[in-house]
């Protein structure tokens, strides 16, 4: 049996502990420290150029370059003597940002010198002070061969902090042997494909395509229209119509034959080992996007990062990348080089979309009332 004194001492210890916690919390309340809020604002640095050597770490999405022995990364290493650590650790813009944000807030990039992110994410990172600016003088090849149409996008009119990597379209991947008739996003809601359809977990892709399919222009849509589209997706998710929401993993499901169709990215053929898989432009249009190389704050060896950016803009390098990844190249002259090589990609509407082909497409739109719409979307994803 325990004595009374023992109990009293315990009580006292508990009281002291509680008091200590309350006191420290109180102290924190008095202090004016704030977490987040772009701690690096006002001191925008410019990436330092100069002779490039040493190590370079690049973060990119899977299937976005040939990382093999005879691929583009190896060629760069051989030519410059820079040792590249090329990591394919980006599976979604938001997820990647969420993972790195605490470090970026501290002015660190986790050892990475180049990220590849969508327009809106590059802008968001820039606004929070997480990116370094780029001196055009360090990138002679980029600004010689960059497509004129990409030189002054709305989010970065002077290309101060972003250099396009590849572009693409979001539409429907179809297993033509199993579901040859799917041509519209509406078809993905057909009960006969129940549980055999996946969709992307990106807010600016999936709900936007659903709106397009219902005749709503995402660029003009109100928050309520976004929420309606998200509701429709929520119902389809809870009824089991939609099997999963995915990042790049939909390519695995298509390869394994788990699904007959997916909302997916136009250039992912290199990741899908299924000869019946075909990317289709939805009848009602697609979303179009461009992804950018950016240099984060705290990036080591920015000279090598700049050398990398300039290297991939050499048309002979850019054409290799296009041939491997089958996305839309921002570099002029790639089409001619492909024709010279006799590649049928030169004729591909997916790699060189005409205006006619993309006439109904829209850019990546950030919804109004982002926080509320995103919360509703995340609730669908984790429903």
């Amino acid at each position, binding site marked *: 049996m325990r004595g009374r004194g023992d109990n009293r001492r315990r009580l006292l210890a508990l009281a002291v502990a509680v008091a200590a916690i309350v006191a420290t*919390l109180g102290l924190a309340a008095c202090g004016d420290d704030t977490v987040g*809020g772009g701690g690096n604002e006002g001191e925008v640095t410019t990436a330092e150029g100069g002779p490039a050597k040493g190590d370079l770490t690049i973060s990119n999405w899977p299937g976005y370059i040939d990382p093999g022995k005879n691929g583009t990364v190896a060629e760069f290493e051989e030519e410059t003597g820079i040792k590249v650590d090329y990591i394919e650790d980006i599976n979604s813009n938001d*997820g990647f940002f*969420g993972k790195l944000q605490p470090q970026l807030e501290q002015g660190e990039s986790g050892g990475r010198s180049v990220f590849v992110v969508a327009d809106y994410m590059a802008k968001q990172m820039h606004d929070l002070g997480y990116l370094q600016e780029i001196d055009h003088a360090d990138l002679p090849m980029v600004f010689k061969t960059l497509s004129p149409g990409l030189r002054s996008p709305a989010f970065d009119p002077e290309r101060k902090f972003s250099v396009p990597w590849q572009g693409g379209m979001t539409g429907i991947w179809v297993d033509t042997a199993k579901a040859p008739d799917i041509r519209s996003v509406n078809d993905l809601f057909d009960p006969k494909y129940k*549980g055999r359809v996946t969709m992307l977990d990106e807010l600016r892709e999936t709900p936007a395509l659903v709106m397009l399919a219902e005749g709503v222009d995402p660029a003009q849509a109100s928050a309520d229209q976004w929420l309606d589209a998200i509701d429709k997706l929520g119902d389809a998710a809870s009824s089991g119509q939609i*099997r999963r929401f995915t990042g790049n993993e939909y390519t*695995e499901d298509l390869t394994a034959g*788990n699904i007959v169709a997916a909302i997916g990215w136009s250039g992912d053929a290199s990741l899908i080992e299924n000869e019946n898989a075909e990317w289709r432009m939805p009848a009602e249009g697609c979303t179009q996007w461009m992804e950018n190389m950016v240099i984060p704050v705290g990036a080591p060896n920015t000279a090598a990062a700049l050398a990398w950016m300039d290297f991939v803009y050499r048309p002979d390098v850019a054409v290799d990348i296009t041939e491997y990844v089958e996305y839309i190249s921002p570099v002029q002259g790639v089409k001619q080089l492909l024709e010279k090589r006799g590649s049928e990609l030169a004729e591909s509407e997916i790699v060189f979309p005409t205006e006619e082909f993309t006439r109904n497409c829209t850019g990546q739109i950030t919804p109004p009332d982002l926080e509320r719409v995103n919360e509703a979307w995340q609730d669908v994803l*984790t*429903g």
Partner: protein
Amino acid sequence: MSLKQRLVPYWLLGPGLLWLVIFFVVPMYFMGELALRSGTLTTGFTFDWAWSNFPDSLSGHTEQIGRSFLYAGTATVLALLISYPLAYAIAFRAGRFKLLLLFAVIAPFFTTYLIRTIAWKTILSDSSPVVSVLQTLSLVPPDGRVLATSGAVIAGLTYNFLPFMVLPLYANLERLDLRLIEAAKDLYSSSRQAFLKVTLPLTMPGIVAGVLLTFIPAFGDYINAQILGGTGQAMVGNVIQSLYLNQRNYPEAAALSFLMMALILAVVTVYIRFAGTGAFMGDEDDGTA
């Protein structure tokens, strides 16, 4: 007793306390402090005793919490049903293969958790031989699937946390004094009675330890639901991940984590009370009370 003498036990506790402070108290403090902030990523999160984060973090997420209990609970029961006979066989029937079998239990876990879970995705894919066998046996409907179902998530949890159940059980069974079973039989108990009245009570500490070691990590797991699950199978871990990584609502994510810790603590306390685990807590007298 001099002051010096009275301080000795605290000095001896020192390393343990220091460990707890650095790896438990300090992180808990930061998490608690974060849970009471409000704001957004762009404006910054300011500390203002925002208790509302706690109810807010629960709203709309009760279903996932219930699901986490169901999945983790089922996985724990399954793991126990698989592990007990397994540990029993290894402890008493394996003879010279004892160590080899024990190694076989642990060996798959030399591979990382993620790779093993992704491997299951391939094994259980819709057109895999495993699934067609299950379909032939009518365990899965002809047009049904295994992947992206609750069953797949529970199976993944069971598999991934199995060694946490097997090892404590084995350690406990191994120490069991077989003469006690012999004595029970001498007193005319059947094998079944001997098991229920002697073996089982004496291995209770192992069961309790195994259940805790399995249930607690399984409850907070999000990998299995993410990789093996589909829509409508997210667990509370997935919600916390989404709050933290995708909505960047750090305070609510911290608040929800806190609430889940409290909930688990409450459940475990009740469980330990009922399971009567004095022995597990190192207090032999209370063990069978």
